Structure formats: structure tokens, C-alpha cells
């Protein structure tokens, strides 16, 4: 059951809403938990086992960490001042060990489901390099959807407990609901405990406004997914699977359309997820903030898949860049290379680790690792040359917020993103390079004729409706960028105007959506990462 299936939208979700509505306040969170487990079970029975195990792990680790904290406080109260430091260090070590154990178990579960194939292929490649006949035969236990997403949420919880940011003395059902809440299970957003747990567990009554806003958000997400992303699917699939039959210009068009498809698919599904949460009064974290208005790659990553970016920043980047060794390196380099270049080197080491893991998180494949390194390179270069450009703008008396400059930077960033996504979508790294090469060595504008473009399962009408919808979404994005609250402004209109807008949106989706027997259903694109 996917979020855009009619039985999710017209059967599962309404039944959960009804159950939630009927249930007394105390039982409301349990309705959500039951619904979440049913949803996960319908998705994949084994995933339920994994998520229950992960819940137990973070519950036990959280309690354990909290117990150690309490013991430490107790001991510190009854001890002379001189030994306090020693006791603190001792308990810090103990807590660290417990945290590492928790991280190890969660990462092991993720590895068993996602990376065993990749590991065994690499071991076998090395063995064959040394002409050893032995071959490792291990493969992924299973590939439950969404495990990469909830594992990050689970890790964030135990690290936050370790850091004292959240309490580890939480009720098991509350933790279970935090990890398994059905709208976020397949594609995120990757929520932190303090983002959603209280909303989820408070058993808020259903509110008309929340339900309306939630439903609107769902319809908006469905429009993105079904009117744009799914409609472009035949074109993108053909170009990426049979790239060798096409001119570089057609490949480039296919890659651009893929970026549009990916954004509309992923952000559309996230809209459905956030909208589903909103219905129950749960404010889930936003995952996108007009990413194609970004002026640099680091800006892009603060607007695209935000919850993943902030996760890596908080749990990988900062711990590495703020550790003792890193700080020592920073001060040493600062003395030698100055205030700009000095911190860049240790910071870049942390950044390198982040992007290596980011690539690996997306999938067990060299193209994903390359994708990570590709973005690392551009962020690193951006950091390195930023003062140089700022200086240049100052000398040329160009305002950094000059509209023309902003447009140029946005276009530059978009181009970098597009080529990055080529490697991301390619079936392998070598195919990615072949496609990349073809774009630059076999490019002819003549190939971009109507016959070629309209011959890949997306006709003129399809392109027309995709463009119209993209323009609408662009305008909405522009208004959001200017901090205009569109939904609130619609809500303030008289009922007739409001309803006309809602009907128009729903009918737009129903008429122009790529669904029905003419269209092969397209799985959510980020669900397998």
C-alpha cells in the first residue's frame, strides 16, 4: 500500500481517522500505533519485525543511558569534590559504550538488509584480483522499504538521549509510535523524537482546520506525483535504459526531466506524508524548501531532503569537526594558513565523511558513492573560493543580492545538480560516465526534434500539462520563498471561493493525473533508498 494508492487515500486513511475520532483521548495514540503496524505489515511483514526490534533496542538503550545518568548523579552527590571528575569520566565512558552498542546493533540491522550484497561483491572482486578461488556468498537478508529512514530516526533518538537532549525514560508505546508512524515510514521525513513524539502521543482531538489543511497538502502532493512525475516516467525510463540509442541532446533532456520527476515524486510523497500527519495534528518536519532556488550546492542541500542533511550535520559533521583532534588541527592550520583556509581542511575531512556516508545511505553502489563525492567536491570548492568571489564582487561593485547574479548562481547550481543526478539515476557508475560522455561528444540540437521528443511515451498534451503544472508549482514556490502563507490566505476567503479552489485542485488531479489502465503504476522513487 503506497501513499498515493486509492486504498490508502480512500480506505486506510479514512478508517484510521474514524478510529482516532471515536477513540477516547488516552487511546488515540494506540489507534495510531495499531494503524502504523497494520500499514507496515501490509507493506512487508518482515519489516514489522525489524521495526519492533529497533524500537526495543532504542527503548533499552535509552533506559540504560538514563539509569547510568541517575547513578552518576547519585554517586556525585555522596562523593568528595576531588573524585567528582574521575566519576564523571567513568560514567561518560560507560555511557559512550552503551551508545556505541546501540549504534552497532542498529547499523548492523541496516547492513544486513541493505549492504551485504555490496560487501560480498567487493570482497569477491578483491579475491579475484589476488586470484583466490574462494568466493563469499552472502546476500541481503531482505530489503524492507524505509529501513534507512527509520534507522536514522532511531539513531538520532539514542544519540539525543546520550547528549541529554531528550529523556531516555520514555514509554515503550510512545517510542514505538515515534519510530513507526505510518506516514513517514517509507520515505521520511526523518523526524527526531523531539519533533513529533509529543504531538503523536498527546492524543489531540481531530480539528477541522487540521483535517482541511492535511487534505489540501495531500492533494498538492498527489498533483506533483501523478500529474508530473508519473507522466514523465516513460520518457525518463527509456532514456536511462537505452541511452546508447540516443543523441547526447536527448540524453540531456532525459536527465533534466529525471530531475523534475525525482523532485516532484519525492517532494510529492513527502507532501502526502506531512499532510497525513497534519490531519492528526502532528507537525512533521519539512523536507524541501524550494531547492531549485538555491544559489550554491551547500544552499541546495539545506533545501533538498532537509531532514537527511540536518541529520548528517548534527550526528556526523559536528561530532567530527568539533572533536578534540579536529579542533587541534584547526588551530594548527589556522596559524599556518590563516583564518579562512585554516578551518577548511579539518572541516572538509568531516564533510568528506558526511558525503561518503550520504552516498552510501542512498544505496549500495559505486554510483551513489560517486554522487556523494561529487557533491562534496562542489561544496568544498564553494567553501574554498567563496572569499575570492566575494572579493571580486566587492571590487566590481556587484551587490551579492543582485537579481542577475542570483539568477546566474541559481542556474549554475541547477546545472551541477542535474549532472549529479545523472550519476544517481544511472544503472551503474560506468553507464553514468558513458551517458555523461555522450552528452558532450555526441550532442546535436537537431536531435531535439518533435518526432524524437514525442516518440517516447510522453505526447504533446502530456508535455503541455507538465509545463502548466510546473509553472503553477513554480509560482507557489516563489510565493513561499517570499513567505506568503498561501493556505492561510485561501482559508481566509469566503466559503464559495475556497470550495471552488479546492474543487479545482481535486479535479485537476483527477483529470490530469497519470493513473488508470493506460499507465503503469510508478513506485515512489525514494522508497528503496
Amino acid at each position, binding site marked *: 500500500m503506497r501513499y498515493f494508492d486509492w486504498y490508502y487515500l480512500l480506505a486506510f486513511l479514512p478508517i484510521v481517522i474514524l478510529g482516532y475520532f471515536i477513540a477516547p483521548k488516552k487511546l488515540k495514540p494506540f489507534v495510531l500505533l495499531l494503524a502504523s503496524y497494520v500499514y507496515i505489515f501490509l507493506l512487508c511483514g518482515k519489516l514489522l519485525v525489524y521495526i519492533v526490534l529497533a524500537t526495543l533496542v532504542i527503548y533499552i538503550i535509552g533506559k540504560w543511558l538514563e539509569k547510568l545518568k541517575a547513578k552518576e548523579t547519585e554517586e556525585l552527590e555522596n562523593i568528595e569534590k576531588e573524585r567528582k571528575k574521575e566519576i564523571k569520566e567513568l560514567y561518560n565512558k560507560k555511557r559512550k559504550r552503551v551508545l556505541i552498542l546501540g549504534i552497532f546493533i542498529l547499523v548492523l540491522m541496516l547492513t544486513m538488509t541493505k549492504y551485504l550484497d555490496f560487501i560480498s561483491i567487493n570482497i569477491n572482486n578483491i579475491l579475484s584480483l589476488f586470484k583466490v578461488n574462494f568466493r563469499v556468498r552472502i546476500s541481503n537478508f531482505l530489503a524492507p522499504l524505509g529501513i534507512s529512514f527509520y534507522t536514522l530516526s532511531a539513531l538520532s533518538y539514542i544519540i539525543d538521549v546520550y547528549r541529554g537532549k531528550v529523556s531516555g525514560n520514555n514509554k515503550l508505546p510512545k517510542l514505538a509510535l515515534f519510530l513507526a508512524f505510518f506516514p513517514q515510514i517509507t520515505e521520511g521525513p526523518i523526524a527526531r523524537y523531539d519533533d513529533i513524539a509529543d504531538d503523536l502521543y498527546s492524543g489531540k482531538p481531530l480539528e477541522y482546520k487540521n483535517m482541511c489543511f492535511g487534505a489540501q497538502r495531500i492533494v498538492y502532493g498527489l498533483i506533483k506525483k501523478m500529474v508530473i512525475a508519473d507522466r514523465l516516467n516513460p520518457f525518463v525510463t527509456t532514456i536511462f535504459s537505452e541511452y546508447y540509442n540516443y543523441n547526447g541532446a536527448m540524453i540531456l533532456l532525459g536527465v533534466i526531466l529525471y530531475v523534475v520527476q525525482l523532485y516532484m515524486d519525492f517532494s510529492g510523497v513527502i507532501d502526502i506524508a506531512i499532510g497525513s500527519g497534519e490531519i492528526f495534528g502532528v507537525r512533521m518536519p519539512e523536507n524541501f524548501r524550494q531547492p531549485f532556488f538555491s544559489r550554491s550546492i551547500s544552499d541546495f542541500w539545506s533545501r533538498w531532503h532537509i531532514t537527511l542533511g540536518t541529520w548528517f550535520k548534527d550526528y556526523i559533521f559536528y561530532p567530527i569537526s568539533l572533536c578534540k583532534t579536529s579542533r587541534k588541527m584547526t588551530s594548527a592550520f589556522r596559524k599556518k594558513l590563516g583564518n579562512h583556509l585554516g578551518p577548511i581542511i579539518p572541516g572538509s575531512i568531516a564533510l568528506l565523511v558526511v558525503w561518503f556516508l550520504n552516498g552510501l545511505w542512498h544505496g549500495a553502489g559505486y554510483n551513489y558513492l560517486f554522487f556523494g563525492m561529487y557533491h562534496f567536491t562542489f561544496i568544498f570548492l564553494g567553501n574554498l573560493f567563496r572569499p575570492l568571489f566575494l572579493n571580486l564582487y566587492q571590487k566590481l561593485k556587484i551587490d551579492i543580492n543582485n537579481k542577475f547574479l542570483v539568477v546566474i548562481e541559481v542556474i549554475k547550481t541547477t546545472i551541477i545538480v542535474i549532472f549529479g543526478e545523472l550519476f544517481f539515476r544511472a544503472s551503474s557508475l560506468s553507464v553514468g560516465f558513458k551517458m555523461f560522455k555522450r552528452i558532450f561528444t555526441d550532442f546535436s540540437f537537431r536531435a531535439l526534434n518533435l518526432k524524437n521528443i514525442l516518440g517516447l511515451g510522453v505526447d504533446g498534451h502530456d508535455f503541455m500539462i507538465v509545463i502548466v503544472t510546473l509553472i503553477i508549482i513554480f509560482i507557489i514556490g516563489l510565493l513561499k520563498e517570499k513567505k506568503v502563507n498561501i493556505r492561510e490566505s485561501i482559508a481566509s476567503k469566503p466559503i464559495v471561493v475556497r470550495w471552488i479552489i479546492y474543487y479545482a485542485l481535486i479535479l485537476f488531479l483527477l*483529470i*490530469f493525473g497519470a493513473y488508470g489502465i493506460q499507465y503503469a503504476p510508478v513506485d515512489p522513487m525514494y522508497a528503496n533508498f
Partner: protein
Amino acid sequence: MKIKDVFKSFIFLLILVLIIKGLSYVFVPKDNRVNFGMRQVSANGILGEKENTIDVLVIGDSETYSAISPLEMYNEHGFTSYVCGTPAQRLYDSYNFLIKAMDKQKPKVVVLETNAIYRATSVYEFLIANVVKLFPFFDYHDRWKQLSFRDLDASINYTYTDPNKGFKINSNVVPEKNWNYMQDIHEVSEIPESNLKYLKEIRKICNDNDIKLVFLSTPSIKNWNYAKYEGIKEYATLNQIDYYDINIDKFDLVDWMRDTPDKGDHVNLRGAKKVTKYVGNILSDNYNLPDHRGDKNYESWDKDYKEYIKKAK
């Protein structure tokens, strides 16, 4: 949520349902041609046939349009027939085709190819089929690409009819060596529960309209077996339906080394000619069907046959 809000939501949804119902009239194809957005045009060609001109209606899955050629039967016996067969047809589709055809036709015989009877219908498919039946908009929403002002006028005029009367010519040959598919294994395949309801409905329509319902199992190595034969025989006997299983009655009719385009899944043109001849004889001998050859009202059938034999060599 206040009662007022629940009421408001209900009104909103009610209006939405009414709009979708209204749009269904706009989006439904106004003619049964491809360029009008009609799908399964050869099967839906029945809608364009002249009123009360079809004597035998054949419904079922791909076995029907592969094996039965109405024009061959017309030439041989003079009665008219039409194949409303579609790929992987579910029984509710067969039922719907029968209802649609009955709008303009009063066939004397309805032949139901039995393969569709064993194609189970899930609750999901059942629901979808019923929603689509109620709101054809969902089936034809993609017609926005062809929509014109004419569509605002809900009147429908079906003008297309398939020159082969639903039959599809396939001359390919991909032989199958293993012909051992009708061994009596002393088992009876049960008809899926969901399909029993539709069989009952089909029987009711036929009874109410004085139509003879006939079950027919056309030759197919891949899709047919003895257990299925036993299941259909049991049902047919119980409900007094004439049942002909060519796989049993005339096992050697088809030469699977030459008469199949897909290793025994279907029959090809060569096989279809044999099956059609066999079925034509049964229908002609047992059901008192009229001979329209030479009748001015059926001249188009003679013309179609002339064209057909050029293609079906």
C-alpha cells in the same frame, strides 16, 4: 470537530461526487472509435453493429478472438456472430459486454468461453470495476487530450464496427511438443466464489431474454486441463447449460505443431479455421440459427467476408 464541520465535509464530498458523475457524461467516448478515446475497439465494435443483426454473441478472454472467426461461420452457415473478447477478460467484463451488447442486439445464443470463469476477481478488482461502472470518468479521464465542445452534448452515437467482427488474425507459428494436458487427474477445479455471482447474473440475463447460454472451452494447452473441464461440466450439468469442450470432444482437432502462435496458449489462424468450423457446425446444428446469406440487409457481411478472405490466407 463540531457537527457543523462534519456536515460541511459531507456536503463538500457530495458535491464532488456529483461533479464527477457529471464529468462522466462529458468524458465518456461519444463514438466507439479509437480517435474518440474508445478502448478495446474491436470488442466494442459490437456497439456499432446494426440493431438486432447479431445471432450469436461470443464473450470471454483472448481465447475467443484467437479461435472463433464470425465471418467464417457466416460464410459457411449464414448466421451472424460477434466476438466481444478482450485480453485476460474477467467474468465481470464478460457480463458487462453482454449488458452493453444487449442494448442494441437480441442474440439467440451467447457463447461464454470458459477460461474467463477461472480467472478470479479480487475484492480490489471488483471494487474498481464497480466504481468505474458508476463513474466512467475514472476510466476515460485521459480523454482530456481529445475533448471538444461536442463532448458537452452527452449524446452518444456508435458508428464503428470491426470488419473481422472481433476476430484477430494471427498467422505466426510457435509449436508446442507436449500435448499431454488433458490427463484425468481425478480433481475438480472449483469456480472462484466471486465468479459464481457473475455466472448467475449472466444466466439470469439469458433466461430473461430467452437466449440460449452455451459454454465453450476452446483448445489451449497452457490454460486448460481436465480438472477445469470437470469443474465446468459439473456447473453446466447442475444449471442445464450446454457445454462443449473441444479439448475433450475433439482432442485431435488442433495440430499443436502448426496451429499455435505461442506454444499452445492460443490457436493461430490455421487452428482458428478448424475450431471455427467445428463450433459453427455445433451452433448451426443445434440452435436453429437463421441463414442471412443473400439477404440485402446483410450485404455488408458479404463485403466484409470478401475482404476477410484476402487477409486470412
